[in-house]
């Protein structure tokens, strides 16, 4: 009997160890045929950012008359979903694409929390620090104020279809505002909808 107990324990431990060694699969973002999830994943952010950028580039809103670049500030992008999302997952992709397009400069001197680089302010406080060569310290009045502001929100709606199924709707809503006039010069909305088991958790 004692022998059987030892054998059973050894088998259980081996099984536990084996399950711990279950193969981990790395995602290939270039060819990801993995199952869809009810929550938002990187594929959804790629799609929403790609559509927003295409729409912005097609609109004349970012075409400066003299062919130069506008200065863009990133304002608040609200996460109005039930998920813990850092909206930078969306905004960072848009920022990179717009910067690379040559149509804008993105300022980090002013904007929403997370989009401001504190060094802009801190380095200017060095003007009274004699350890620093004063000619290398950024002077007052050199920061450029933004012409445009990008704001928006990500909205989620959960709708029960029946006791087994649910529908989750996501809306990526963005607005580009001309700061001088306060006019919204571009607006974009991307819808991503998912239908699946009511047991799936979308937060």
């Amino acid at each position, binding site marked *: 009997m004692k022998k059987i107990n030892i054998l059973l324990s050894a088998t259980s431990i081996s099984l536990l160890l084996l399950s711990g060694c279950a193969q981990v699969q790395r995602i290939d*973002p270039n060819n990801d045929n993995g199952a869809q999830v009810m929550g938002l994943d990187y594929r959804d952010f*790629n*799609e929403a950012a790609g559509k927003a950028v295409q729409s912005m580039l*097609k609109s004349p809103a970012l075409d400066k008359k003299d*062919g130069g670049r506008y200065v863009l500030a990133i304002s608040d992008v609200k996460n109005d979903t039930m998920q813990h999302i850092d909206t930078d997952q969306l905004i960072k992709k848009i920022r990179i694409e717009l910067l690379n397009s040559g149509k804008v400069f993105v300022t980090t001197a002013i904007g929403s929390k997370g989009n401001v680089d504190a060094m802009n302010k801190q380095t200017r406080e060095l003007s009274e620090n004699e350890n620093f060569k004063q000619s290398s310290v950024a002077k007052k009045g050199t920061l450029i104020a933004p012409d445009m502001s990008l704001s928006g929100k990500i909205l989620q709606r959960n709708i029960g279809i029946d006791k087994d199924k649910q529908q989750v709707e996501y809306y990526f809503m963005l607005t580009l505002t001309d700061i001088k006039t306060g006019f919204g010069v571009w607006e974009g909305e991307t819808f991503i909808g998912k239908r699946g088991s009511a047991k799936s958790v979308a937060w």
Partner: protein
Amino acid sequence: MKKTGLVFILTILLFLAACASKSYVKFVDNSIDRQIEIKDVKKRVLENGFTQIQVDGINKTDKYILFKYRVVWEDKDGFEIKSLATNWSDFSAYKNANFRINIISPSKKAVEYQLYINKD
């Protein structure tokens, strides 16, 4: 005789000009050409210097099909310009109907493209 020679040279020049273009639309899976057909591909440079391409096609089948496409952009020297367009995007092809894909280049430097179409 002279006329034949001229036609031959013109044909060769046209062929070379076609080969010089690095832009194209390609089906990833060859079986797709039984379902859709590309009718026309237009390319233009907009006033702001960005390149726009428009692909017109038709779904030859009796069913709605969801496809996906991705675009690889290159500069004039053939170097790839990274952009979100290299990710797959869905497009709908309704049964027995035309479809259209319209894309703007990610920057003024992007002048050549390779557009790939695949099943979703």
